[in-house]
């Protein structure tokens, strides 16, 4: 970023008690003020709303911007820390009230909240930012709609500190959807000053120059190399981060990242491969958290023969070598999703399906089906995700041969994968990895089991599932009917098997000299709670 000013930086470095007269920072950055993290992806924009912004860039929305509300934190049974989907906490909003009909949410903003330039955060800024999210098109607009926000006229700035959202229908997803990275609050005065006629939402400007109120400012962005965050000491959204500065370096090679974190030259290696996680677990602190509402699944296209035959789908489910896949594709990281109870007593999701590797059962179902002599089929995988798809596909290929299904593995280039797998839905049999941000089973069903939805790669369609999903999607989870309806949905898809769950993947993070890691559904590094080791 060319706007970066060397002199200002040196002054701040000196102020922070670092060596004042060098043209470089101290060689070892472990002064307690600076945290160095590496990851393998690349941040391609500082503005989540821009079309084309990739997943890795969402971390800027998290670390540099505030939302009205956020999620709380909880300790998982494994001892890991995680965000808590069930607890909504204030971020820029001080308090909120929901009307009795559930159609109006009134937020009171924190009176002392300021943007980085010192100006006050007003309801007008919130309105402008929300208008932008629902009007920008593409991903932000789709995600906003999940919470019931689709038009600018739903948002109203009543006065400087009062912001009102009007909903078309009450939904349990509305408030949580305001805590995901998308509805972040932008300094609208700065943005408008840099907007043009062709670019009313200042996409061009905010792409490289964030203007927010968040815990960190972007001090420097060398696209394709690194992002440097600097703490905003005036942050009121939560507890002030422990680190003055957080450096995020992009290192594509997993081997290099591993060497860096093992040597302790970086403190956090984010999203490391399962294999490295299992090998480093003895030497360093490795956090492996099963990703909420995410399933690595084998999808069978229910529109194409022979998978139109329910017995064939059952045979495949019984022939799948779950244990071997979990060991060699996931290195035992994550959670098992097979061998569960037949009886459904709770609404936990993802949940183990009641199938295990049982070749006798598989053969019995094959014999009952319309294809007792087996058939030929192509199993497609994405070249971008070979690390888990390749071993899983080869094991499935080997196992299916046992029941007379002759599988050919087809590797599809990443650029084409989404088109053929998710948009055209033209693949017979494929591996898929959808995960939903909003952690409710109905939200998963909405994207993966309802007809025509992007992640319904199996082309599944079942009138009851359609109806039950629509019915439960916005229903409060403590509604007396909720659990019963959800169980019905579970029963149908467990019986129908358009998607055979293989396992729930884990997000792995290796730490060497840092602490305070929290898992988040968005699978990006939230730098705000991180602390030094032993702190």
């Amino acid at each position: 970023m060319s706007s970066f000013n060397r002199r200002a930086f040196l002054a701040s470095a000196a102020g922070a008690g670092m060596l004042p007269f060098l043209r470089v920072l101290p060689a070892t950055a472990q002064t307690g003020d600076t945290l160095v993290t590496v990851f393998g992806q690349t941040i391609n924009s500082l503005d989540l709303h821009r079309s084309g912004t990739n997943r890795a860039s969402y971390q800027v929305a998290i670390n540099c911007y505030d939302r009205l509300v956020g999620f709380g934190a909880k300790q998982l049974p494994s001892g890991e820390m995680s965000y808590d989907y069930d607890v909504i906490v204030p971020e820029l909003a001080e308090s909120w009230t929901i009307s009795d009909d559930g159609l109006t949410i009134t937020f009171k903003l924190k009176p002392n909240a300021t943007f980085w330039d010192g100006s006050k955060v007003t309801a007008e800024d919130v309105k402008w930012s929300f208008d932008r999210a629902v009007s920008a098109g593409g991903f932000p607009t789709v995600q906003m709609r999940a919470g019931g926000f689709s038009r600018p006229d739903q948002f109203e700035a009543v006065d400087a500190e009062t912001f009102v959202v009007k909903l078309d229908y009450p939904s349990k997803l509305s408030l949580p959807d305001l805590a995901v990275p998308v509805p972040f609050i932008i300094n609208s005065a700065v943005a408008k000053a840099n907007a043009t006629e062709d670019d009313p939402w200042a996409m061009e400007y905010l792409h490289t120059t964030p203007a927010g109120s968040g815990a960190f400012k972007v001090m420097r962005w060398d696209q394709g190399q690194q992002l440097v965050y600097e703490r905003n000491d005036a942050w009121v959204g939560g507890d002030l981060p422990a680190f003055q500065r957080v450096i995020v370096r992009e290192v594509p090679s997993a081997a290099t990242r591993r060497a860096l974190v093992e040597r302790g030259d970086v403190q956090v290696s984010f999203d490391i491969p399962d294999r490295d996680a299992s090998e480093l677990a003895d030497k360093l602190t490795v956090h492996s958290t099963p990703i909420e509402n995410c399933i690595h699944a084998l999808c069978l296209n229910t529109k194409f023969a022979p998978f139109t035959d329910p017995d064939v789908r059952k045979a495949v489910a019984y022939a799948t070598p779950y244990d071997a896949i979990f060991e060699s594709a996931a290195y035992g990281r994550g959670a098992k999703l097979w061998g569960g109870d037949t009886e459904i007593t709770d609404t936990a999701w993802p949940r183990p399906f009641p199938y295990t590797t049982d070749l006798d059962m598989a053969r019995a179902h094959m014999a009952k089906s319309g294809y007792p002599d087996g058939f030929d089929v192509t199993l497609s995988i994405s070249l971008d995700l070979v690390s888990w798809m390749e071993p899983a596909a080869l094991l499935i290929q080997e196992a299916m041969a046992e029941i007379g299904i002759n599988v050919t593995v087809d590797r599809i280039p990443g650029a084409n994968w989404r088109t053929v797998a998710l948009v055209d839905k033209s693949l017979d049999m494929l591996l898929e990895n959808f995960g939903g941000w909003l952690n409710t089973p109905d939200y998963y069903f909405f994207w993966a089991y309802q007809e025509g939805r992007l992640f319904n790669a199996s082309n599944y369609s079942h009138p009851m599932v359609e109806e039950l999903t629509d019915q439960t999607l916005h229903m409060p989870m403590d509604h007396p009917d909720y659990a019963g309806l959800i169980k019905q949905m579970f029963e149908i898809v467990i019986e129908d098997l358009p998607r055979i769950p293989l396992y729930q993947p884990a997000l792995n993070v290796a730490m060497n000299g840092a602490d305070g890691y929290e898992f988040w559904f968005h699978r990006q590094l939230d730098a705000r709670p991180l602390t030094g080791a032993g702190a």
Partner: protein
Amino acid sequence: MATRWLPILWRLVQTIPVVIGVVIISFVLTRALPGDPAVQFAGQMATPESIEQTRVALGLDKSLPQQFLIYCKALLQGDLGRSVATGRPVLTDLSTRLPASLELTLTALVLSCLIAIPLGVLAAVRQGSWVDHLCRVLVTAGVSLPTFFTGILLIYVFYYLLGWAPSPLGRLDFVYFDPPRVTGFFLIDSVLDGDLRTFAGAAKQLALPAITLALFTLAPIARMTRAAMLTALSSDYIRTARAAGLTPRKVLFGYAFRNALLPVVTTLGMVFSFVLGANVLVEKVFAWPGIGSYAVEALVQSDYAAVQGFVLAMALLFVLINLVIDLSYTLIDPRIGFSSK
């Protein structure tokens, strides 16, 4: 003086059809590739509407000839378009990434030449001696070890085990600032700035990746030098020179080496253009922000403008390198001239 430049100008004019061809082919090829950019850039969660919105935003709803006209019009104004993935003009992307690749490739080639050419000459002069065998071993090892393997091995030994090399984190460790940009070459810019600390920092970062690439390029250069020297040494004019009683030194460097240089320079040009585009693996291992990884990323995401820009830049670079090589022929061997085309 004007007559000297005329042939060069003529050569440049000759490249115009080539460039036009490259523009058309790169445009058609990117469109012919499977993969829909609108789907790619519509984001994680997408609906048919949001994919359509993205398609319109990217201008991909227009017909192909229309898109081509728009592309050509922009190209004539020096605008290579905008990369969707990086959100920046392709020209900006290339101008930050090309110097990084050039710096790495050139350093590696200089390093490689410093070793390979003397080695090749010695191997030819002392055929069958230990130098010849050493040359053979190095050459075989150089080509048979893939660059990413050599790279990881060097990192393992010199960074992980010995701790001599700095963290393999790209062009400069995060403790340094980029030198003020003049050429885009950190080594040169830091010297221009008089900042020797940054120069040392950049040189340290450059060492391992440059050695990795140098090992890989050693083979063709050393082999070609050896072969060319052998041919030259066994030719008539060398016999004559020796018979005329010239010193061995004069014979070797004045006659044999000068004649052997022609094929070596040709090889160098080829190796250079090959390595520049093909060092993706080295870039990935050392987190080097070069042009190779940029192109691969762009290709994987069907980022049309970026791919086209990359292909065009490489084509222009090829043309330039070929011109430089042709010019250097005339310097090495006065018998070759441009006028006799």
